[in-house]
């Protein structure tokens, strides 16, 4: 599903923020990505959702090397990846249901189909009472759930979440974890970046650990993740 081989990355001419990162996420797996603030978690995810290119090394997504994918093929690849951004990135001028439906619209789905689906999903994350609210009027936890609903609405093959429980208390964090697990049961490969050790412990899932831009810990290396098959 996702394979990194000796990947390095830098912003502009700055220092490498990721060095020699190698790992493999098998289809249907569920991993955490842990590490202190500034360790490079968000940067690693950006590489995976094709917001940045590596400065060296090989990345393959869905069994193809991203360096050789033609540019016009990228939108279709991106639609297979659901992302919960660290800062949500909701469209402030659009109500909750339209925000959630955005990935389907972008993919060209039918209008009625889109709305029904979005409504259903918002119920699933417990937001069915604020479909018409605008994001600026929502609490941090509510925005987070809208962002999650938007990330999963198109049933992506790969779900990437960047600190999805950063703004909520532990009870809600556990509820969100259940959402991700349910999605994983339906076949989606999940990677959650977090520094919430408590959450990782309670989930009992394997983790990739970043420290100073390098992958350390139990699953470092090419064989990483084989044990993580869900």
């Amino acid at each position, binding site marked *: 599903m996702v394979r990194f081989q000796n990947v390095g990355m830098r912003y502009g001419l700055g220092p490498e923020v990721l060095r020699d990162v190698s790992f493999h996420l098998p289809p249907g797996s569920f991993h955490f990505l842990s590490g202190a603030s500034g360790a490079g978690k968000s940067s690693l995810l950006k590489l995976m959702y*094709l917001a940045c290119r590596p400065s060296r090394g090989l990345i393959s997504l869905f069994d193809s090397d991203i360096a050789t994918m033609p540019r016009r093929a990228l939108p279709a690849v991106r639609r297979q990846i659901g992302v919960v951004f660290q800062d949500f990135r909701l469209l402030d001028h659009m109500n909750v249901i339209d925000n959630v439906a955005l990935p389907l619209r972008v993919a060209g789905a039918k209008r009625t189909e889109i709305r029904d689906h979005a409504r259903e999903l918002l119920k699933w994350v417990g937001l069915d009472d604020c479909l018409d609210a605008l994001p600026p009027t929502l609490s941090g936890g509510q925005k987070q759930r809208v962002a999650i609903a938007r990330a999963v609405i198109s049933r992506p093959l790969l779900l990437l979440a960047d600190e999805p429980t950063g703004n909520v208390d532990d009870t809600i964090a556990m509820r969100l974890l259940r959402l991700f697990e349910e999605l994983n049961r339906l076949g989606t490969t999940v990677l959650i970046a977090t520094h919430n050790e408590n959450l990782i412990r309670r989930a009992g899932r394997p983790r990739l650990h970043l420290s100073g831009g390098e992958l350390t810990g139990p699953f470092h290396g090419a064989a990483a993740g084989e044990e993580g098959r869900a």
Partner: protein
Amino acid sequence: MFWSHRDLALDSDPARRFLPWLLAMIVYLAGLALAGMMSLSAAVDRWDSGLSGTLTIQIPAATPGNRDTALPNAMAALRATPGIESARALSAEETAALLEPWLGKSALSRDLPLPRLIDVRLRKNAALDIEGLSNLVRAAAPGAIVDDHKKSLDRLIHLARTIEAAAIAIVVLVAFAAIATVVFITRTGLALHANNIELLHLIGAADGYVARQFQGQALDLALRGGVIGLALTIVTVILLGRAAAALGSGLLPAVSLSALQWVILAAVPVAIGLIGMITARITVMGALRKLP
């Protein structure tokens, strides 16, 4: 209209509110230039068809020879020349009426010596040697001037072509101004909404999807501006036409447009709408290509 969803809040961009007004002025300028050009070329056509195939022979008031025999002699010479359909001497009253717009009634009534004029019509396709005819007429009536209108018509046509070229230059410059305006406004929009555009890009929007939002908006705004500009043009052309008709001296070309010419004027806002749409698309597609 051409876009069902507005994923980007382009409407709120302050610069966009000015776009229809800027484009309205641009369309107004282009419309006036076009209308001026078209009514002028209609006038030139009228002069051309009215004057070709005709000659005017003028026997000046201060003729060196005998004034009374000059006219009949010239007429006789003309009748003897093959290729001439008709020759008619204008009466003194007719001549006065022709000169009135230039000189005014009072000057004419003061017993001003007037030249005598002969209106000559040529047979169709008659290959007449103007030089030879000129010599012939001058022999019959010394001092007579044969005017085939070619020189004055050529000068008029040259003037008209110059004005036409200027009008085309205005239309081209104004089109560039429209393109530059739309590029500027679109770039502003791209910068203002860079975050949301990146989001659309990351969730898998193709470049064309993002471009459609901009081009739909640009078409809408440019059409609006175009309609305002066209309305101003129409009002101006009608007012100018009335003013010229009131003057009524025949000195000015009539400011009136044919049905086809009105259609051409009406196409200006459509053209500006398309220019706006295509410009916005090219600008956005170019900018998006820089995203990873």
